[in-house]
């Protein structure tokens, strides 16, 4: 790609004369802060956006890519940062969407299933073909996305932050699959914020900052710190977070014997734990082991089949979300597009969603436009949300900036209990650091924090206690973080090991 320039209709210059050279058979990392223009560049390559200037060459020949159809014809495939599956269809149906094998006039279902299974097995991306995508955990959806692209015969794969949603193990699996793909001659462009992965996987890299090229080269010739300096324009020290110094206070959240049964299956099984004021309790686990359902139940979006939930000794089991929020519960949801934000609403509207009825923002039944705007300006400043104005639609923000909108709203609620479900997913190095620091600050302010994360590094850095969930049960509890290693956690997360009932009960009897 040569001299690519892209100006969005709202005047944002997302790409400014960018050059990107990717060689056949390599894994190329594309790096940059949130809003640097990575996704935009990739969307241009995939024909979703049109460049205002610049040329694209494929194997030496200039090509014009006007739509994803053109891209697919040129054997370019893309897995988007935000998933693009159809939630009401099954895995196999999603995979063959648009390229359905046919038998007569109808779709050949068994062929579709067979194709899906075969490709899944071949590339080390096993999926269960008949599940409805809406029911799948995010990690699994990711796999489906990749399969879908492979099924379309892509030779050049664009992966926009594919590992943001994966656990270490899933990441390993993905990397193994990607390496297999490369040995078979496929080429991969890989967008990420995780520098370790770059070192581990990529051959060469390109760094963007503010829509411009700031560097490229061989991965083996740069250090992580140098990459950070290129991305941010200055050095950032390595993450060190203050461990808890004070004793935790009273119990804020008490979860007692919660069961959640769906289709006769125990999605949650006798889950009991406590989170006290001034501590961060982390729930580690491979995505899809009941964490999502647990969070839903805690915020009132799902009803527990059995069990009780208390906030400061007051029971709130199965109360509606508004009541739960008004008691001082806030939540950064993992599904930011489905829950966290309204894409077609403005930033200011998104930021007041849980507080628009408060006296600051409304008089009688009207809304106080000025106060709402001030509120948004303030939060945009504090949380460094990069946008033109508070009235900008959230849908036109970069992935990381969307996440900042969610984080800004939930952290500024001043909660007693904060549930943070993958809070730094998709954030760049600086923003990740910022959010983690804010979580620590909240804890030190006296909030109780329940951190749900598939990122073990994040857990090791932040948690005061760790709970491991496997198949809907608590299989381990660690009160002494120093004794825990990521490898050990991994064993429990995969169900290889399991503490005795008594030890795991530490989550409850702390």
């Amino acid at each position, binding site marked *: 790609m040569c001299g690519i320039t892209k100006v969005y209709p709202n005047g944002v210059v997302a790409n400014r004369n960018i050059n990107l050279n990717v060689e056949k058979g390599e894994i190329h990392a594309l790096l940059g802060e949130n809003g640097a223009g990575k996704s935009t560049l990739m969307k241009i390559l995939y024909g979703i956006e049109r460049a205002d200037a610049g040329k694209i060459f494929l194997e030496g020949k200039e090509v014009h890519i006007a739509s994803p159809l053109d891209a697919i014809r040129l054997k370019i495939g893309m897995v988007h940062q935000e998933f693009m599956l159809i939630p009401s269809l099954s895995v196999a149906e999603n995979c063959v969407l648009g390229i359905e094998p046919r038998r007569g006039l109808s779709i050949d279902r068994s062929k579709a299933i067979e194709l899906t299974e075969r490709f899944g097995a071949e590339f080390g991306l096993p999926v269960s073909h008949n599940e409805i995508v809406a029911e799948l955990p995010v990690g699994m959806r990711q796999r489906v996305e990749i399969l879908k692209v492979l099924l379309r015969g892509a030779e050049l794969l664009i992966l926009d932050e594919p590992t943001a949603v994966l656990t270490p193990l899933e990441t390993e699996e993905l990397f193994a699959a990607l390496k297999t793909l490369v040995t078979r001659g496929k080429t991969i462009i890989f967008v990420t914020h995780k520098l370790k992965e770059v070192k581990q996987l990529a051959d060469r890299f390109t760094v963007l900052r503010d829509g411009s090229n700031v560097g490229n080269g061989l991965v083996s010739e740069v250090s992580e710190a140098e990459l950070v300096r290129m991305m941010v324009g200055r050095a950032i020290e390595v993450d060190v977070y203050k461990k808890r110094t004070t004793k935790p206070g009273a119990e804020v959240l008490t979860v007692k014997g919660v069961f959640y049964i769906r289709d006769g299956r125990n999605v949650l099984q006798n889950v009991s734990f406590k989170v006290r004021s001034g501590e961060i309790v982390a729930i580690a686990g491979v995505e899809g082991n009941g964490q999502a359902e647990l969070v839903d139940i805690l915020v009132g979006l799902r009803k527990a089949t059995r069990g009780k939930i208390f906030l400061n000794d007051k029971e709130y089991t199965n109360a*509606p979300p508004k009541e739960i929020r008004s008691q001082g519960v806030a939540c950064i949801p993992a599904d930011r597009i489905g829950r966290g934000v309204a894409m077609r609403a403005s930033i200011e*509207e998104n930021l007041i969603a849980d507080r628009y009825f408060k006296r600051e923002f409304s008089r009688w039944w009207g809304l106080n436009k000025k106060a709402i705007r001030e509120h948004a300006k303030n939060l945009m400043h504090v949380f460094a949300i990069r946008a033109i104005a508070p009235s900008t639609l959230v849908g036109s923000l970069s992935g990381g900036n969307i996440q900042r909108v969610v984080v800004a709203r939930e952290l500024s609620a001043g909660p007693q209990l904060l549930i943070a479900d993958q809070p730094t997913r998709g954030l760049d190095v600086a923003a990740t650091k910022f959010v983690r620091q804010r979580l620590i600050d909240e804890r030190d302010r006296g909030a109780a924090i329940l951190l749900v994360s598939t990122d073990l590094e994040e857990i090791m850095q932040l948690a005061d206690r760790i709970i491991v969930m496997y198949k809907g049960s608590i299989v381990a509890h660690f009160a002494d973080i120093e004794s825990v290693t990521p490898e050990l956690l991994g064993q429990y997360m995969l169900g290889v090991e399991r503490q005795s009932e008594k030890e795991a009960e530490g989550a409850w009897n702390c």
Partner: protein
Amino acid sequence: MRSNVFELVRTLVAVFLSLLIVFIFIVIVSKDPVRAYRLFLIGPFARISRLAEWLNQSIPLLFAGLAVAIVFQANQFSIGAEGQFLIGALGATMVALSFPEVDVIHLLVAILAGMLCGALWGVIPGLLSAYGLKEGDNLGVLVVSLMMNFIGFYTAYYTINNHFRDIYAGFMASPFIPSTSYLPFLSARYRINGGLVIAFIIAGLVWYFLYRTKWGYEIRMVGTNIGFASFNGINVKRVIIYSNVISAAVAGLAGAIEVTGLHHRYLWQSMPGYGFDGVIIALIARNNPALVPLSALFVAYLRTGGRVMERGSDVSAEMAMVLESIIVLLVTAEALLNLWQRKRLKRKVSQR
């Protein structure tokens, strides 16, 4: 703001293109296409009586567009405005016929009755879609509102026919309502419905309601992303109910205004089609109440122009319907948007 201008341009282009297409149609069907097209385009302006016809026709369309815009903003695909309009008209007629003839109060009570009856007619689909249907089941909402239209029409028909029928009228209609319940005409000579003023005021109010009040905010948030709304503690069921009810009140008001401001009796022997008209008008206005008056005036103009053309040439009024449909198609087609966006960007690049 820029995108608003953009939307407007896009709509205007669609209008222009469809006028062109219609001209081609007229050339094909007419012996004197220029005359027919002129009648169609400027006919409504040529005489004050036609102007009155145009304005009067735009009033119920304007209300219907507003009613639909409200439910559409909540992402409820309801076309129930029609039934609510008729029930509103029925309520206003009944009250106007039975209430003592006191100046001003008589009129107010009749109009309020119309609004209230319309609103009540919205309670049923509201409750049904909040509790009876799955979240986001828009087909269900559509079916429910459609059925409610039939029930509304026949309920009104039955009531008028059996209890309030004017036996001296040559057709099914209620007796005339007493003159104390008349809404004053804007111009009595040309019978221009005074409801026009009310319609514009209501458009302003609905805009204020949707964009400047808590309830309006809730409606819009539920409309853009139900998961987001409920996650943040908005009571989605409640929002679905009151969006239906408020929309229905607007439609009911329209019925009351037709009765007190123009016909002075209930006279609908068939369904007037305001449900779908409302959908068309709301679509053209992009569900924005501030644009609904323009869009309603526009559609009413097309229809009036169509009738003028029919009366004065060999082209039938159905042509206007064709035009209307083409415009809706073009306005809502995303393809056009993309075409335009590209052109604009190309220009931008070449300026660089």
